[in-house]
Structure formats: structure tokens, C-alpha cells
């Protein structure tokens, strides 16, 4: 936005890192003309935890808990992204039931993430009630997550080759409670905020970013879609069972705070739609890959005997395109799930195999190569770039974090606006520190 400065001299103001709205990890150096931001310089790096360096020194299985800490509001999506990257390298197709569970849990995570974003937008513009409604709805969804995974935030639920455990028997009733409350919360929020004069005044035409600039800065997810650009990884590169489900991608028009709020509100509705469809369609069966066709024992025994499964018997998912040929032999010749606990505790062979699976030099050993795989995270395209040298540890694991790109262009969303507008704009892009700095 162009405007004429009122005075010749400008003031420098340091916002953060110890400012409560900056999550304690963002420093914005503001050049102010009165109350207007002339120039902003965003500085990050206060929460760098060396995720990538750590991943290079851990086995493939040990990396999963670290991915929880990337976007800690929707950890299951991170788990799914990482595990599917390794699965792409290994060439595994997970059982259908596990795919449905992954989709359902991902969408629950997406809702919790959006609720965590929408609550603060409302709070920063003065609507404390909505914040509390959102947190209440999120709490019911976290109950569902806790019953399924055993933890609320750091879940580590997804495994390479499936998921850790099947959904519990009372899942339906819990999910219904969570979804009903979310729907109620959405309805109340629409009533309280969507046509509220104060809220619209604070968010309409504030924090605007144009479509061209959003693309140039690499924005993805709700922030890109709020500018009216249609791009969703679930639609463009369908993974799991998203191509079998019916859902829409909500778009905005102007790319301002209000559009971002509205896009997220509508995405929650679409996520609920996905969950309801998936719950109807979910098939019975196993949730880990090897148990589906062969027992882990018979697989290892067969590999000792030099027998191999015919590659054509292995069905690959559509997102493993181009990988049918050379890698399918790895599917059954390497072991990528631990033996069942009953075997470990009752037989010496089981114990040996358990040990062989968990020692750092053995375990999952993908073939040499490099893959990039992306899922639609709550904030945009969450991509993993994995380089394997054939050993049991990733040679390199890089995360394409959507927040990083959002923060790279954040200064363009606040330049020209008031200091007080920084806070709602910052809330509306839903910056998550763990993912931003890895």
C-alpha cells in the first residue's frame, strides 16, 4: 500500500520475541510512521531444534516422534506425511482400513488446527467468548484423539506400514460428540462473528495479499486459497483415499483476514463431511501392512528359503506411480514392522527378530534413492524430501514447512497497516513455531 508519510522521521519498534502475541519466537522490527507500519523485518530462529540433524542420526522409526513436534496442533498429519514418504521409498501399500483411519484422524487434526487458529483471531479482535467456544469444541476432539492414540498432542500414532492400533469400540459415540459440538460451535460462531460489525471492521481489507504475490512467496493452504487460487494437495495429488471422497475446496476472494477466517470456517465443514463419509465407508480388516497378506514369520522364513512373492501380487497405490517394477521385491524381503508382542514374549525367535528390528543398524532399510512426498497440512503443503543411502538411518530429511513460506511473506501483509492490525493478521495465518523452525 502506498501512502505519504506524515513526518520525516520514523520510529523503530521491536515487537517480540517476548511479546505475548508473537508466541515468544518471532521478532518483528517495525519502522513506524505514527501508528502505521512503513517497513517490517521479520526475524526467526528462536525455536530451532535441529530436527533435520537429529533425523539424520536416528533410525527411520525413531524419527516419527520428532515429526509430532513439527506442527504440534495437528501432529497426525505430520506423522502421515513422514510415514507415507518412507512408504513411497519402500513401495508399500498400506491396508485399506489403515488408509481410512489415517484420513479420519488427519481430518480431525485439521479441525483442531483450524479451531486453534480461529479462536485466537477472535480473541485478538476482542471476542473472548468465541475463543472459549472453540477451545471447548477442540477439547472434545482431543478426547477422541486421546482415546484412539493414547495422547493428546504428541501422538506418534501412524507407523510405517499402517497405524499403531485400531480405533476403539466406542469411537463412534465419541466422534459424534466431538463433531456435534464442533457443528454447534461453528453455528454459534457464525452467529456471533461472521456478520459482526466490529469483527468485520477489524478484519475486512486488513492484511491483504494479492494472488500473484502469494504465489511468488510460495504460500499454500488456506492463505493461498483465501486469495481465490484453487490449489489443494488432496485434489491435485490425491493420496490415501481422498479421491474416493466427495468434498469441496473453499475459496476466498480478496486475501484479507476475513477471507482467511471464512476459508477456515468452511474447511472445517468440509472436513466434517469427509469424516462422515469415511466413517460410513470404512472397511473391516487389519491396520498394519504385513499382517494383511503374510505373517511376519512366514515372510522372514520365506526369505531365508529364498522364496519371493511375485511382484504382480502386490497392489500399489496410485501415488506410487512409476515404482511398480524394480522396488516391489523389497516389499517382502525386508522387514518393516516389528513382530507381534505375543511372539516376542513367548519364543526365542520372536525375541531375536524383535531385537533385530530395533537395533540402530538393522530395522527398516529403504533402497537407495530420493523422494519428495507432500500431504495437505492444515497450513498448506507439508512436504518431506527424503534421501536414503540404503542404511537404517535417513541420509537427509528435509521438511517443506508451509509456515516458513508464510512467514517469509508476512511483512508484505502488515506493511501499510496499523500496529494493532499486526496481531489479528499474525493470528490469521496460524504460524506454528515448531514447524517454522524445525
Amino acid at each position, binding site marked *: 500500500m502506498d501512502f505519504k508519510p506524515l513526518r520525516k522521521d520514523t520510529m523503530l519498534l521491536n515487537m517480540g520475541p517476548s511479546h505475548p502475541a508473537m508466541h515468544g519466537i518471532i521478532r518483528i522490527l517495525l519502522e513506524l510512521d505514527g501508528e502505521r507500519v512503513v517497513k517490517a523485518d521479520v526475524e*526467526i*530462529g528462536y525455536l*530451532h531444534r*535441529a530436527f*533435520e*540433524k*537429529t533425523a*539424520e*542420526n536416528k533410525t527411520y522409526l525413531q524419527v516419527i516422534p520428532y515429526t509430532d513436534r513439527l506442527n504440534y496442533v495437528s501432529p497426525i498429519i505430520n506423522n502421515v506425511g513422514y510415514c507415507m514418504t518412507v512408504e*513411497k*521409498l519402500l513401495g508399500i501399500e498400506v491396508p485399506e482400513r489403515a488408509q481410512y483411519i489415517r484420513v479420519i484422524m488427519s481430518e480431525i487434526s485439521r479441525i483442531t488446527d483450524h479451531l486453534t487458529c480461529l479462536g485466537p483471531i477472535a480473541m485478538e479482535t476482542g471476542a473472548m467468548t468465541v475463543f472459549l467456544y472453540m477451545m471447548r469444541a477442540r477439547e472434545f476432539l482431543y478426547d477422541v484423539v486421546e482415546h484412539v492414540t493414547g495422547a493428546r498432542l504428541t501422538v506418534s500414532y501412524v507407523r510405517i506400514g499402517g497405524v499403531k492400533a485400531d480405533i476403539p469400540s466406542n469411537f463412534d459415540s465419541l466422534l459424534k460428540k466431538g463433531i456435534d459440538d464442533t457443528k454447534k460451535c461453528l453455528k454459534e460462531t457464525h452467529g456471533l462473528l461472521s456478520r459482526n460489525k466490529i469483527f468485520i471492521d477489524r478484519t475486512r481489507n486488513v492484511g491483504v495479499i494479492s494472488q500473484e*504475490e502469494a*504465489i*511468488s*512467496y*510460495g504460500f499454500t493452504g488456506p492463505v493461498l486459497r483465501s486469495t481465490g487460487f484453487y*490449489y489443494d494437495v488432496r485434489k*491435485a*495429488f490425491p493420496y490415501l483415499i481422498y479421491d474416493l471422497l466427495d468434498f469441496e475446496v473453499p475459496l476466498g476472494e480478496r486475501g484479507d483476514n476475513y477471507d482467511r477466517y471464512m476459508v477456515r470456517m468452511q474447511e472445517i465443514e468440509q472436513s466434517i463431511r469427509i469424516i462422515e463419509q469415511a466413517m460410513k465407508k470404512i472397511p473391516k480388516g487389519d491396520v498394519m501392512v504385513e499382517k494383511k497378506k503374510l505373517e511376519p514369520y512366514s515372510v522372514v522364513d520365506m526369505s531365508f528359503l529364498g522364496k519371493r512373492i511375485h511382484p504382480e501380487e502386490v497392489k500399489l497405490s496410485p501415488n*506410487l*506411480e*512409476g*515404482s511398480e517394477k524394480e*522396488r516391489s521385491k523389497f516389499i517382502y524381503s525386508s522387514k518393516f514392522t516389528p513382530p507381534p508382542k505375543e511372539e516376542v514374549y513367548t519364543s526365542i525367535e520372536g525375541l531375536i527378530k524383535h531385537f533385530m528390528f530395533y537395533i540402530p543398524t538393522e530395522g527398516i532399510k529403504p533402497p537407495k*534413492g*530420493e*523422494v*519428495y512426498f*507432500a500431504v495437505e497440512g492444515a497450513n498448506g*503443503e507439508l*512436504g518431506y*524430501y527424503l*534421501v536414503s543411502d540404503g542404511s537404517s538411518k535417513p*541420509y*537427509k530429511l*528435509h521438511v*517443506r514447512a508451509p509456515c*516458513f*513460506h508464510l*512467514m*517469509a*511473506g508476512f511483512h508484505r501483509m502488515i506493511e501499510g497497516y496499523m500496529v494493532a492490525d499486526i496481531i489479528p493478521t499474525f493470528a490469521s495465518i496460524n504460524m506454528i513455531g515448531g514447524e517454522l*523452525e*524445525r
Partner: protein
Amino acid sequence: MERKEELKKEIQDRFGEFYVDFSSPFGEDTLIIKKEGILPVLSFLKNYGFEFLLDITAVDYLGKKPRFEVVYHLLSFKEKKRIRVKADVDEDESEVITVTSLWKNADWLEREVWDMYGIIFDGHPNLKRILMYEEFKGHPLRKDYPFRKRQPRIELLYPED
């Protein structure tokens, strides 16, 4: 499939001196070029339809020569395709031309690569550390940087041996 061959041929024709390899391992199109060709090839790809820069990163192959590899991921919205562009960079002359003129997010991405690997991006407007602090010595994601090395910002009361 045809489109892929077409792209390969066009790059070979136009940038024969920079072209090294074009293949699709794991179903992912990968173009390997010489590092001098990064800017012309990437700007050609941008006009060709890959208008979105997903990511820039590097890989350290310690003990190999050349040591580093700069990796670019591009995305085409129209064709729903991704492409990976790689270029070898040696340790001694680790200057790579910046692509900040093509994409704005390259600014931070290149800063991160410099911070983590020490690859210098020529012509970058503001090449300084982004995730680590200014006083940090070394580049942490290099393979010869020890995993457990510490660089405390204040002196430790009981220094480690």
C-alpha cells in the same frame, strides 16, 4: 509421458551445455544440470509452466567430489506436476547464482541453505543466518559437523571436557 519427452528434448536443445541428465526415479521427474545453468534453466522452467517454487535445499555427500548438491523443487499448477532440479556444487567454489529475482520465497530458502550448509548464493540481497544466531560458528547440517557439539552463547559454569 509425451510431455516429459518434449520437455527433455527442449532442455537438451536449448541448454545443451548445462544439461547432464533427465530421469524419473520413483516416478518423480529429476533434472540434473550444471550449476552455471541454474538461473537460465529455472527461468525457462518458470515460463514453461512450473511457476511455483516449492523448496530449495541441499544435500551434503561428504567424501564425494563435488561435495554438495543443491536441490530445487518446482510445481506446475496447470499440469499438476512437480519437477526436481539438482546441481552439483563443490566445497571450494560453492557459489551458486541466486534465484531471488524469479521467486520471492527464494530469499529465505537460500538463507536457510547458506545457514545450514555454507553454500553461498551470489547476488542474494541479504545473505545472513536465519535459523542459527549470528555468532554461530560452522554450518550445522554439514556431515562433518558433530551431532552433539555445543556452542553455548554464555560461558558455562561447569565447562564440559
